């Protein structure tokens, strides 16, 4: 494996670390505060998966679109959604990113090119193809990324879209985040054949990536996105990574072998690997990273406090925004 560390500027590296760290802190807070009963609804945390979201989204502008999944906090943050507005949303407040109407599973900010988390497995994949289709119809150089999980690979929506994208030569990247499980079911069991072979069977340019390593993610995603942007057709990234918490908050994850998560946290944590590699390569200093850690903690303190205090939606809100006009 080549060393990807060196091709990055310190500024980019620090920005990447900050976003990854923000996601981690965001998820950890929600985990804690959900346990305290502060947070309503179904919550799926992406802690552990940060390097994928950030390594990909750093190559996108606000005019490039992504579609996400039920596990969408990390993608949203990586695509530039506002931390405070996101927290407000998850706390079901009127000032939330979606005015309190969507919650964790429907986070979105179209002005940032984030089409949405999605409660339907595979449901966001065709939507991302739609953004790519826009780019094709208007002959622009915008690209779209469809994030989805290993479980979602087996949904018709995902597979149909892989084919459609190939046939129409859409500028889309299929970013399959294989965290080893779809709910309680291992991806190694649920995927017939294997994911890269399947993607290649659709004629997609296919890459396998270690999603624990930001530098590999960043470098490869950058090259792939540049190809797709240049009109070379859709691509597929098979990203191996790990989730730390249960499938949803409340899941004891007893279907995982004992110690699995601890081992991954110890050996493969993406923040830890980032720190080791970037400091060892003298790209950044440990102090710089420590400082970011502290800033992020303060930022999240503020976001949680804001979310707690923010006003609730009101009765009128119930009926608005079903239609533009009716």
């Amino acid at each position: 494996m080549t060393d990807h560390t060196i091709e990055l500027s310190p500024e980019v590296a620090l920005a990447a670390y900050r976003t990854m760290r923000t996601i981690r802190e965001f998820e950890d807070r929600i985990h804690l505060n959900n346990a305290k009963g502060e947070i309503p609804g179904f919550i799926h945390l992406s802690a552990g998966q940060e390097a994928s979201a950030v390594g990909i989204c750093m190559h996108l502008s606000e005019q490039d679109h992504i579609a996400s999944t039920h596990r969408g906090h990390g993608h949203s943050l990586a695509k530039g959604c506002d931390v405070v507005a996101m927290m407000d949303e998850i706390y079901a407040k009127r000032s939330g990113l979606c005015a309190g109407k969507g919650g964790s599973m429907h986070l979105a900010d179209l002005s940032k090119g984030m089409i949405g988390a999605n409660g339907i497995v595979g449901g966001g994949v065709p939507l991302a193809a739609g953004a790519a289709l826009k780019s094709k119809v208007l002959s622009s150089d915008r690209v779209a990324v469809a994030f989805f999980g290993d479980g979602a690979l087996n949904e018709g929506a995902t597979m149909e879209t892989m084919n459609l994208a190939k046939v129409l030569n859409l500028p889309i990247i299929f970013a399959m985040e294989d965290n080893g499980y779809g709910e309680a079911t291992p991806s190694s069991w649920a995927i017939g054949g294997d994911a890269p072979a399947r993607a290649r069977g659709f004629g997609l340019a296919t890459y396998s990536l270690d999603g624990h390593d930001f530098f590999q993610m960043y470098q490869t995603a950058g090259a792939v996105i540049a190809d797709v942007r240049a009109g070379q057709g859709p691509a597929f990234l098979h990203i191996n990574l790990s989730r730390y918490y249960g499938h949803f908050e409340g899941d004891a994850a007893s279907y995982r072998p004992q110690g699995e998560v601890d081992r991954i946290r110890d050996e493969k944590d993406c923040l830890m690997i980032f720190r080791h590699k970037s400091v060892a390569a003298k790209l950044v200093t440990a102090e710089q990273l420590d400082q970011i850690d502290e800033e992020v903690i303060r930022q999240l303190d503020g976001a949680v406090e804001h979310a707690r205090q923010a006003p609730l939606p009101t009765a009128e809100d119930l009926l608005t925004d079903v239609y533009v006009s009716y």
Partner: protein
Amino acid sequence: MSEKSFRQAINEALSMEMRRDPNVFLIGEDIAGGTGGDGEEDAWGGVMGVTKGLLGEFGAHRVIDTPISETAYIGAAIGAAATGMRPVAELMFCDFAGVCFDQIMNQAAKLRYMLGGQAKVPLVIRTQCGGGFNAAAQHSQTLHGLFTHIPGLKVVMPSNPYEAKGLLIEAIRDDDPVMYMEHKFMYDDKGEAPDESYTIPLGEACYSRDGEDITVCSLGRMVNLCNQAADELQAENINCTVIDLRCTSPLDEESICESIAETGHLVVVDEGYPRCGFAADIAALAAVQAQSALRAPVKLVTPPHTTIPFAPALEELYIPSVERIKQGIREALGV
């Protein structure tokens, strides 16, 4: 103004809006036909020839054939709409809503609300409905009831070429997702319609005929059968108001209730399934909002709660006919 077929009226609406707005594009299965092959291009223009000729004028970037993957391309149309385009997707038969219903029900319809008003989804899904072709259970349904059930969708069903053109142009310009339902038996129907562009607002019914004895509500192809029934009933001294609702959602509740207030009698004629269907929806409206005006039970003329049969001998009995409509009206009036 000139005589046009239902098919032509739709084709005109599409081409006029495509000329007017570069964000309008078409996508569907064989809406050109022959893409990627060695034979004729634009060989079909859709299975009923409705989009024929548009490929030539607008090119393959805006008249987009797809693989047989409704979830993918309807979903892509939704995504394109949410990011600023105005796609018109063709779902060949509304029966195929089954294979892409998640995208219609959970994505297109809900996106705006879930996103707290950030998104709009200015998408039109053109689709065929209706029986009469002996196309059997999976190619003859009229599923406006399903679509009307889902908050966030608008549902349009024109009854003649004039409405077809004006409602489609309006639907394309509308900022919400619209299910636009074309009755497959009507494509060759002729009628007068302006040659220039015009719109008919969504949610405004039209009084297709005025009469003081009874209110007959319907939409789409059934309106024409209702008018014929009303014609024939004049000989029996029965004078009907026939309301062409044009849209099921939004629904022109006011016109319906006003008319019931005048006539005191309601017949609803609909080709959809009866249970939790559109006819029941209108009957419920009457029971809730116009009960005091009703002088007799509401009468629904619909198919039975039955899958659609293939045999012409059975399908004729299945679909509401002029005869059954007349009988329904007589029963509602107790004559």
